[in-house]
C-alpha cells in the first residue's frame, strides 16, 4: 500500500471513495508530476485491458451430464428415507446371514457298533426305562401312602372326639332321666302311703 495519502492507483482502478476521488482530482489538477504518473498508469491499464480472454476449447459439462451425477454413495447419504431403507436392508441381510451361518448342528446317529445287537440295545433301554419308571412309581406310592396315613389318623382323632362328646351327652341325659324317674317313684310312694307332703297345719 502506498504511503501517499492520495491513492492515484485506487483512483485509476475505480476503487476510490467519492471523497478520495475529489482529493485525487484536485491533486491531479495541481500537480503536473501527478498527471504524468496517472497518465502512465492509465496507459498500462489500457494495455492490460487489451488482452482478450481465450476461447474455451470445449464447453464445461452441465449438471444434466453424467459427470455431474452424484455417486451412489452420495445419493444414499443425500436422502434420509433412502438411508433408512438402506439401513433396514442391511439389517435384513445381516439377520439372514446370521440365520444361515449359525444353523443348529444336526447330530447324526451313526451305524451300530460291531458286536452289539439291536436286541441288546432294546433290552438295555427297556431295563433302564423300566427301572426308572418303577422308581418313579414307588416314589409316588410312598408319597401317596404317607398322605393317606396322615388323613386316616386325622379322621380317627376327629371321630374319637365326636364319640366322646356324644358319650358325655348321653351320660348327662341318662342322669337327668334317672332323676326324673326317681322323683316320680317318690311321689307314688307318698301317695300310696297316704302321707302328705309339706308342713302340717
Amino acid at each position: 500500500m502506498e504511503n501517499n495519502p492520495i491513492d492515484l492507483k485506487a483512483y485509476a482502478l475505480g476503487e476510490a471513495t467519492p471523497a478520495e476521488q475529489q482529493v485525487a482530482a484536485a491533486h491531479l489538477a495541481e500537480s503536473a508530476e501527478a498527471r504524468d504518473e496517472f497518465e502512465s498508469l492509465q496507459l498500462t491499464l489500457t494495455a492490460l485491458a487489451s488482452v482478450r480472454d481465450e476461447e474455451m476449447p470445449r464447453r464445461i459439462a452441465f449438471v444434466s451430464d453424467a459427470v455431474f451425477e452424484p455417486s451412489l454413495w452420495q445419493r444414499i447419504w443425500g436422502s434420509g428415507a433412502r438411508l433408512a431403507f438402506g439401513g433396514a436392508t442391511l439389517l435384513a441381510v445381516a439377520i439372514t446371514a446370521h440365520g444361515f451361518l449359525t444353523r443348529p448342528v444336526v447330530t447324526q446317529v451313526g451305524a451300530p457298533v460291531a458286536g452289539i445287537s439291536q436286541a441288546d440295545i432294546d433290552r438295555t433301554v427297556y431295563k433302564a426305562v423300566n427301572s426308572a419308571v418303577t422308581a418313579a412309581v414307588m416314589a409316588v406310592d410312598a408319597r401317596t401312602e404317607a398322605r393317606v396315613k396322615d388323613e386316616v389318623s386325622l379322621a380317627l382323632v376327629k371321630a374319637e372326639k365326636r364319640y366322646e362328646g356324644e358319650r358325655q351327652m348321653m351320660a348327662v341325659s341318662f342322669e337327668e332321666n334317672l332323676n326324673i324317674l326317681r322323683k316320680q317313684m317318690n311321689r307314688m310312694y307318698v301317695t300310696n302311703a297316704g302321707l302328705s307332703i309339706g308342713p302340717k297345719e
Partner: protein
Amino acid sequence: MIFREVEDRDLVIKAAKGNVDAFNLLVSRHEKRVFNYLLRLVGHREDALDLTQDVFLKAYQNLTKLSDVERFSPWLFRIAHNEAYSLLRKKRPDSAELVYDPPTGGARQGMYPVEMNIAVERAMGRLTADQREAVVLKIFQGFKFEEMAEILDLPLSTIKSRLYSALDVLKGALAPMKG
C-alpha cells in the same frame, strides 16, 4: 452489471433448491471467466479446462453451503483458486515461485496489435505468482478489492500491496510500448 448480479442471485437460489437448468445457466455464464483465470494461474490449457470442470463440480456439490448468494462469483473463484494451487503444489511441490507460461493457444482478435499482447504477456512474466494473480483478478476479471480479499483469503492491505507493486512492475515493463 447490476441486472447480471440480480439474475445470478436468483439462479443461485434456484440451483441450491435443485434446479439443474439454473445451475447450467450459471456454468454458461462463468465458465469462460473461470477458465481464463485458471489458465493464467496454471499456464496450461488442458489443465485449466480440467480444473474448470472440477471447480463447477465442487460448486454444484457445495452450493447449499454458500451462505451469501450475492457472493457467488467470489465464492466460485475462491474454489478455483484453491483448485489451481492444489494442482500446482502437486506438480511443483518444491517450487515456491510459479513459472509463468503465458497462454499461446488462441489468436488475438482485438483491435490492438499483436505486439501489444506479446509485450503484455512478457511483462506479466516478470511478476511474482501472487502479483500476477492480483492483476488477473483485478484487471482481467474486474473484481473489487473486497472480493479479491475474499477470494484469496487475505487482508485488504495485502491485496492492495500486491496489486500496486505489480502495477509498478508492469508500468516499467510496458513503458517502451506507450509512445
